[in-house]
């Protein structure tokens, strides 16, 4: 009799667990979220003291994703045991890489199709994201080595005026872990991001730019200044998110 009772309890526990698994999780619905870009000022004074008036500012990136988790951080190791890492990648194990975070599931995604014009006025729609309702924790921009930041304008400081043109080749990189902690229940509101263009030029020294041989009216950055600009473009503090 006691054994029968225990067996019955066991079955009930299992049943309740199955019920919980099937019914306890919050409902998640597919939605479409609008991704939009909010321009910032095209004329500004950078931290370096240079006044900058931009005529053109474009950037390309491969994808924008929103994750359910909040950022954690860990570095991968170099593939000392290549086959093991290969096996891991084949089965899709979520090993952390430098800068990657184990932020859980991708809940919204937009795959970029064209360079984004960063100048202009007013919020502009970038695209539609396939998304799900629920809690969000972080955002990620993904860049590839084929992506570019294109910048043209005039910089002036202490009576010196530099007309510049830059085409910065970016790097393969996921700029992950950008805070985006929101509960989203519908696709009514857009997800908006901005690029802090003044931050891109925070450390740029235009006096180190040199004459462009092809376009004599413009100056271009040397390798060091290109590195400075590239790092600024690929730094999370250059981006702001709103919802």
């Amino acid at each position, binding site marked *: 009799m006691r054994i029968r009772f225990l067996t019955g309890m066991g079955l009930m526990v299992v049943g309740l667990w199955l019920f919980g698994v099937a019914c306890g999780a919050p409902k998640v619905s597919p939605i479409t979220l609008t991704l939009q870009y909010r321009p910032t000022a095209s004329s500004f004074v950078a931290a370096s003291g240079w006044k900058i008036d931009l005529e053109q500012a474009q950037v390309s990136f491969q994808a924008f994703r929103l994750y359910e988790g909040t950022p954690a*951080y860990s570095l991968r190791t170099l593939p000392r045991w290549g086959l093991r890492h290969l096996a891991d990648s084949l089965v899709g194990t979520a090993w952390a890489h430098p800068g990657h975070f184990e932020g859980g599931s991708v809940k919204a995604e937009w795959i970029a199709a064209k360079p984004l014009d960063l100048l202009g006025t007013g919020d502009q729609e970038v695209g539609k994201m396939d998304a799900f309702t629920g809690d969000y924790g972080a955002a990620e921009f993904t860049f590839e080595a084929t992506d570019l930041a294109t910048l043209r304008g005039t910089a002036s400081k202490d009576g010196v005026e530099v007309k510049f043109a830059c085409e910065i080749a970016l790097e393969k990189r996921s700029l992950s872990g950008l805070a985006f902690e929101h509960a989203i229940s519908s696709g009514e509101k857009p997800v908006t991001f901005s690029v802090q263009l003044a931050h891109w030029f925070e450390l740029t020294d235009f006096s180190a730019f040199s004459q462009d041989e092809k376009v004599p009216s413009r100056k271009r950055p040397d390798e060091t200044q290109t590195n400075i600009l590239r790092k600024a473009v690929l730094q999370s503090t250059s981006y702001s998110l709103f919802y």
Partner: protein
Amino acid sequence: MRKIMLLGTLFFLGVVGCGGDGKLAVSVWGEAFIEEKIPATEVVDGWEIEFTKFLVVVGGIETGSAAGATGPSVAGFKVFNLREKGEQLLSEFVIPSGTWDRLAYSVSPANAETQVGNASAEDAKMMKDAGYSIYLEGTARKDGQSKTFAWGFKTNTQYTGCKSERAVVQVGATAKTQLTIHADHFFYDDLEDPDAKVRFQTIADADKDNDGKITLEELAAVNGADFAGLAHYGVGRFAEVKDLRAFVEHLSRTLGHIDGEGHCDVKL
């Protein structure tokens, strides 16, 4: 039918883990990269890096499982010199049988309570006096050049969710898991790039007085536009990292792994 149900219940209970206790032995290891050297073949610019001392204060073990179970914790810390050969035992403790595949541990500044692992008493005292969690000394060599370094860090880092593959404890038996310290991370050239490389030339170039000793102060002097202008050393979302010393110090919080290549999360 009743017998089948009874057997099924007993089998279920046995599998779930009412089987009793075993032990978990947790050791620390710095791999051949610390015990021998990081060979030039592993460093993109051809430097080889040999440690003469690699002290680390490890402890604060917490056990758990991916299924959500919480096991015993071991609070104490010990200071080890991972330059010495072989795995060093940090702790061995009784734990319920089962799979403990989510462990946590910390690398924390030494204090008066820190015990001595395999480090010398002199080194342990130095770590306590300075409040270091990590201290490394070594020499990098390339083409007849030689640069030494002796760096101490006071970072306090908890590695969580470490995905142990070996902490599967059988009743009455001792399972062994290893906290693996990856010294090559100190010399990664990017905080975000999944293809970060082990690189030393930029570190060597920081020796501005050219006395052959690269100090943390010299690393800190590579800052602002000098730091941002480096071809590598991207910081991504870690915008607070504005010089080479901060960069290396940040990397000092990424050394911890488990069972060789097993990963942990780091809450920064």
